[in-house]
Each structure stands twice: as C-alpha cells, then as structure tokens.
C-alpha cells in the first residue's frame, strides 16, 4: 500500500514536470501577422567642426596638453522615421552611445504588423536637423504572414536594405 502511495506521488510529480515543460503553448504572433524588425547602428555627425587654437589659447595650455585644434567628440543623435502606408511604424531619436556620447546610435525595434502589401517610406538623419532628413527612401513590399522582415541601414551604400 505504501509502495502504491509512493508511486502515485512520483507519477504526480513527473506529470507536473512533464506538462509544464512544454505546455501551455505560447502564442507569440497571430496567423495573419508578421514582424518588422528595424535594426542598424550608425554614427551621427560630430556636433561641431574642429577649431584651431589661437596662440594665446595655446600659451595658456600646459606644454603636454597643447594640440593644434579643438575637435569635439560628441555626435548628433540619429533620427529615424519609418512609415507603412503613410502610417508611422517607427519613429525614434537615437542618442549616441558611450560615456562621451561619441559612439554609434543603435536602433533595434520589433514591430508586429498585419501581413500584406505596404508602401514603406524610410527617412533618416544624422546631422542634427530637426526638420529635414538626410536620407530618404521608398519601397513597395509584400510581407508574408509569419515573416521576420528586417530593415537595416547599410553604412557603406547609405541606403535602407531589407532582409
């Protein structure tokens, strides 16, 4: 009888372990949905140009600190805006990384959208402008259900690319 009781206990234990090891099923995305992933890293322009030190300024600096010009390290944030069928899908102002704000701006965003055809409009600016975009691009795409549609910004060609 005790053995039987122990067997019941062990059975209950492994049932709990077995069941919650893979159930309930997690529904991450609807059947007619897809993901648009925006992911890239891009450095903004420096916030200013180098300025040559005057002789007086150089004289005031310690000998080991003297250099010909003062070049600011900080960069502008990168502003990005992606619209699908004229609706804003993703809009962000990405600050530069690093303690001195001199690193690249990082974009990463996953957006759930309904599968279908879209007119994408992608704009990006890294010059610090509030009103205009340096890079603009449009595309007509078809996004299938369950697709992970990745939008990147290629630093070499300075264009948005899809994967």
């Amino acid at each position: 009888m005790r053995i039987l009781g122990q067997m019941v206990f062990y059975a209950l234990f492994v049932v709990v372990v077995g069941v919650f090891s893979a159930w309930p099923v997690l529904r991450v995305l609807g059947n007619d949905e897809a993901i648009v992933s925006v992911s890239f890293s891009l450095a903004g322009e420096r916030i200013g140009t180098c300025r040559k030190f005057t002789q007086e300024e150089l004289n005031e600096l310690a000998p080991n600190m003297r250099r010909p010009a003062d070049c600011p390290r900080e960069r502008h944030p990168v502003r990005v805006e992606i619209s699908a069928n004229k609706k804003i899908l993703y809009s962000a102002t990405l600050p530069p990384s690093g303690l001195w704000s001199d690193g690249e701006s990082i974009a990463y965003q996953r957006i759930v959208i309904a599968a279908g055809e879209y007119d994408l409009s992608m704009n990006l600016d890294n010059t610090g402008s509030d009103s205009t975009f340096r890079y603009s691009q449009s595309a007509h795409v078809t996004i299938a259900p369950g697709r992970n549609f990745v939008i990147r910004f290629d630093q070499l060609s300075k264009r948005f690319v899809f994967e």
Partner: protein
Amino acid sequence: MLSLLQKTGRAGFKILQRPMSRVFSPGHSPLDQLGSLSIFFCWIVLVSGIWLLIFFHTSVSGAFESLEYLTHQQWYLGGIMRSLHRYASDALIVTVLLHIAKEFSFDRYRQSRWFSWVTGMPLIWMIFPLGITGYWLVWDELAHYTAITSAELMDAIPIFTGSMAANFLSDSVLSDRFFTLMAFLHLIGLPIFLVFGIWLHLFRISRPVISPPRTLMSGTLLAMLVLALVFPAESQDKANLSQATQSINLDWFYLHTYPLVRAWSPGWVWTMLVGITGLIVMAPWLPPGRKQEPAIVDLENCNGCRRCADDCPYGAIDMRPRSDGKSYTEEAVVVADLCVSCGICVGACPTASPFRTRSDLVPGIDLPALSAATLREKIKSASYKDDHTSRILTFCCEGNRVGKQLQSAGEAVIYVACMGQIPPSYLDYALSRGYADGIVLTACADGGCRFRFGADWTAQRVMRTRDPHLRKRIDNRKIAMIWRDKNIAPQQMSRHLQKLRASVDSVVRHGDAE
C-alpha cells in the same frame, strides 16, 4: 505581511506533508529532502549532459542535427539522456523553489541562517541562465525565441553598447562563434560557479545532507526514466531567422518571465527580477526580527568534553585551548553570530543535571532564555488535573501546536526552544523524583522543525544510542516521542494520551523492573 505569508506557507506544507508522511518513511519524504533532491537532480543533469556533449556539434548548422540524431536515431540512449537532462533540470526548479518556500515558511532564514539564505540567491541566478543557455543550444524555434528575448533583456542593461538582439535577425549575421560562446557558458562557465556556489551555500551548515535516501533517489530516477520514455523531449522546428516565431511550446519552469518581456518591457522585467531578488536577500533582516540571547559557557562547569560542539547543528561552538588554567585541554566557546539559541548544546551537556544539590544548577553551557535551573523549577511546579490516574508531563518545542491543544485540555506542558534542549537527566529527574508518571515529548515531525537534529538527538538519547544516555532505570514505556510515530495526527493526541496513561499505569502496577 511576512508572518501571514509564513503562516500560509506552513499550512500549505502541512497539507502536502500529511499524505506524504503516510507513504514515505520518517525523514524520507521528498518534502524533507528538497535541498538534497536538488543536488541529486544536478547529478542527473551532469551525467546526462556529458553524454549529450559527446555527440553535440557546436555550430549553427550542426547543433540542431546532432540533437535530432540523438533524439531519433539513438533514442534508446541519447534520446533518454536528452529527456533526463531536460526533465531533471525542470524538476530542479520545482525542488529549489519549494526549498526556498519551505525555509521561509518555517522561519529558517534568520539569525545565523542568513548566510545560507543569502548565498542561495546567486544559485538561482546561475540555475536559470544555465537552463536558458541550454535551450539556446538546441537551435530550434524555441531557441530562436529564447535567444531574441534574452538578447532584448541584455540590451536593456545600459552597460552594453550595440544591440545583442540584432545578431538574431538573419542567418547571415549568426556565426558558429555564438555556439562556442553558449557552449562555454553552459558547459563550463556557469557550472563551475554553480558548484562553488553550492559549496558556499552549505559552508556554514554542520552535517549538510547532500544525498537523499537511496529509496528516494531510486524512486525519483525511475520516475524520470518513465517520463523520458513516455514523453521524450524533442526539438521544435529548426530555427529559421527569416521567419518570426508564431507559437512555441514554452518551458514554463525556466522561461516563465519571457512572455512578460514582450507584454511589459525588458526594463520592467529587470525591475521585477531585481526587486524580488532584493526582497529575498533582505528578508532575514526584515521585521519581525527575533534575535534571542545566544548560549553562554560557564567555564567553572565546562570540562571541554566537546559534546556540545559535536551536536550543534550550526557549528556555533568552537573548542579552544583552555584559558582558565584548569587541567582540561579545551573549553567551549560560543560564536554568537552563528548561534540560533536552540539549546541543543544544553541537551548534550553532561553537567546539565537537575540532580545537583550541592551547588547551584549552572551547567557548562546554558541558554539564557530558558536556563537549566528554570527548566528544573518548571518540572517541579508542573500542575496536573486530578481526574487522571497518572500524571503526564509534556515537553513541547516552541511553535508546536500540539502543546497548545494539550494545554487547553488542562494537561501539564513545558515549552522548550527545541526538543534537543532537554538533557535526558531531566526526564529521569521528572520520573524518578515523582514529579510525573509519564512524559510526552512533542516535536515537529518530518522536517518541520525550526532547528535541525534536535528531535533526532533527543530520540537517540532516550533510546540510549547517543551520549548522554537516559539512565537504564527509566522504563522507556513511560516516555512517548510523538514525532516518531507518524500515525499520530495532532487531533488524535487525547486518544494517544489515554494509551500512554494505560501504558504508564501498567508499568507502575507491575513495577519498574519489568
């Protein structure tokens, strides 16, 4: 709030414990062995993991296929090993969480126990990443989901530059080096820290139980094997980074917080995890604190016999060279920070004898909250109801509800910090000096004791297998140790007392020499 949580937890464990104590031997119930069962599951994970490692390919293209081979072609061994690896890992989470809940509910995390409590927390923070990195290595759809969600969590930590999650957006970005890194973390890095963490967790515990009883081990292993055969662990579809994960069979033991990353945000999930961790770590110092005075040594009466140091479950007594010039080689020194004021040392002290008359009753080691002298006075002044044939004196450890029931029924009850606090000479004293006809000792059974070993040591002394022994002139039938008889539920105490009275009456009628 904490008291309410503890009370609820205790009630829950008692409900679980009741049927278990009917089918498992005392001390062999899984609820009594949660810590050692967790270590046992670690062993299963280790052994099965070594087998998996032999066949595992640490590459983007090879990882999934190598596990498919193990699961399907080599199902009779590799498949079983894989299932054991997975289910033992899941079972580990169950036992670890129950272990934490039990120690908290029974208030075994304060005072000197803070160290084991606090050092247990990093173990959790190692076990979860171990399981999660294990899921990455399978490189199926679950791995894809786990990798992206874990990376999003990591990206929320402001010390990292760049986006880790960006590495899992297309197959062109992912390289074999990722699997090398994961394999390093899963197979070497985290396990080494885990082993060190377990050692640290047990560092301050005297006589830690790290192996469950063999019957429990074999039963558990057999059950795991049956589960592995009936419901073998399998991969989901191979990870395809160009496709978004639509639905997955989530392992809720390890990945229960992951859905929250999408529902809330990585930042909020971190806030929750860090908050819960902080609360758990701070718990030993949160009210209601109950620091009692530690045991004190009286060198005049301490002969350095070491019994107290041997019996202390918390290693709170050091034996050091004699400092008072007496001819004994050692003296006992209480480490106040480690002492939980259970009084088990007093129960082990041969100088704690109530028969002493020539000098004051001051033993070599004593508990200020309930001194040996006070305990003797309580025995002498115990009052009994007149309507019973024999007078039964009950010793009850604090917090045991049997004592309250008996007290309200008019029985004589003396509370002690722990059952192990009672030296056997006190039982002898109560019976041989006529202060009681029979004695009931009630301690919490099946691991419910606030302290460790106290009830066991007392039982062994009464059975005369542990020093100091109960003297032979005392008939054992006059002493009932309630926690040793698993069939006695607290509600049946009055019936049991009647039985004990009958037994005591019979012993008295036929003489003690029988």
